[in-house]
């Protein structure tokens, strides 16, 4: 029979952990909702940017824009977005492993990380991290996205890299999210996914010219891509943490049940033993009155 005090101690410690995981689950639910809300607001805007960009690329043949022109693809930069914290199931390792696998096929690659876990992962693999953005993961803002866009454009302008991929986790639903890799630069028409259906499908004029409209659109397109990647990643992180925590809660409850049963059993058997002792004592003293009398 296990020591009752010991079981009691274990129950207490599991209860404490259970409380923490329960709180974490609730927080993740709230944060995930907030992230999804943000995405809904911004998607109207950035979907239209994407659509217009695609429309210009489809209809105008002679576009000269350095972000669209294809360079020989030897040097690839990866922007890898992971979380700042663990405790989110396989969220971090899924996205990091996808990036790592793809990188091995490229002779020259640069790594740009967003999030503490991403940096720690590449450091453990002895892959130098070329650029790091912090504070952009917990609650991504447009301001963060603009800052990242500016820095990346600057590197691209200095001709340090030929193409840029962004690796993040896309959220399909609360329970389904998978890592994804999207090419950011150079922009190609086939890479632009849009589901906006416009009511108007005729030819549209561009003022002052398609070329100049494109110059305005490209930075906004990039901001939109980066922002939506950040938001998707943060929503998926919270969703996976929510699932991991709800599993932890279930496990804790199962353990508490088993331990409570054991504790009650132990307590019951202790009471039984005590009763047995008492009654056998009584039985003994009743049957031998002389003996008890003698001792008194």
């Amino acid at each position, binding site marked *: 029979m296990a020591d009752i005090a010991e079981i009691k101690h274990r129950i207490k410690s599991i209860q404490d952990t259970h409380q923490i995981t329960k709180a974490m689950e609730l927080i993740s639910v709230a944060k995930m909702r907030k992230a999804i809300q943000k995405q809904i*607001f*911004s998607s*109207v*805007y*950035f979907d*239209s*940017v994407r659509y*217009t960009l695609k429309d210009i690329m489809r209809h105008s043949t002679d576009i000269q824009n350095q972000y669209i022109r294809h360079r020989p693809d030897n040097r690839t930069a990866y922007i890898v977005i992971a979380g700042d914290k663990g405790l989110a199931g396989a969220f971090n390792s899924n996205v990091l492993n996808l990036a790592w696998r793809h990188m091995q096929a490229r002779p020259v690659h640069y790594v740009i990380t967003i999030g503490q876990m991403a940096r720690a992962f590449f450091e453990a693999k002895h892959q130098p991290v070329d650029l790091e953005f912090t504070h952009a993961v917990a609650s991504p803002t*447009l301001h963060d996205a603009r800052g990242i866009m*500016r820095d990346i*454009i*600057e590197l691209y*302008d200095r001709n340090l890299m030929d193409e840029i991929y962004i690796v993040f986790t896309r959220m399909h639903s609360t329970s389904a999210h998978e890592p994804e890799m999207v090419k950011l630069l150079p922009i190609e028409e086939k890479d632009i996914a849009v589901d906006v259906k*416009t*009511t*108007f499908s*005729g*030819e*549209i*004029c*561009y*003022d*002052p010219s398609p070329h*100049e*409209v494109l*110059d*305005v*659109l490209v930075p*906004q397109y990039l901001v*939109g891509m980066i*922002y939506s990647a950040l938001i998707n990643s943060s929503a998926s992180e919270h969703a996976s943490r929510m699932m991991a925590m709800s599993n932890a809660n279930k496990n804790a409850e199962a353990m508490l049940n088993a331990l409570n049963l054991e504790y009650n059993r132990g307590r019951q058997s202790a009471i039984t033993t005590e009763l047995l002792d008492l009654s056998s004592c009584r039985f003994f003293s009743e049957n031998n009155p002389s003996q008890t009398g003698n001792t008194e």
Partner: protein
Amino acid sequence: MSTFFLEIITPEKTFFRGEVESVNIPCLRGACTIMAGHQPMVFATEPGSLLLTIDGETREAFMSEGFIEVRPDETIVFSQAVEWPEEINERRAAEAKERAEEQLRRNRSAAEYRLNRLALQRAFARLQVKQHNHLSE
């Protein structure tokens, strides 16, 4: 006067939705006014002031860089930021203006020059919109 449906969208919110008589926008080649029945078009804009005319009354708002899509059924303004005069933080804009001027004085690359010029333009436009509406109040 005939009206048309106008929507103003920023990444954070829908700024405006409704029927307007005309809208004046800061295009790259100077201000432009769009009225009902305009040809389908896309305009690129620079930071400046946006004038909305609704029921004969004109309101001014600040508009950051963006673009405007004119469709037969509706006109949509997309911009990084659109603000009514009362939403503009004058002190922040003045600070941004000083910062941009300082940066412009010692700009290092062409890309930086472009960024700083845009920042200065934004600050100027914000201050201008704010001041116009101080006078009318």
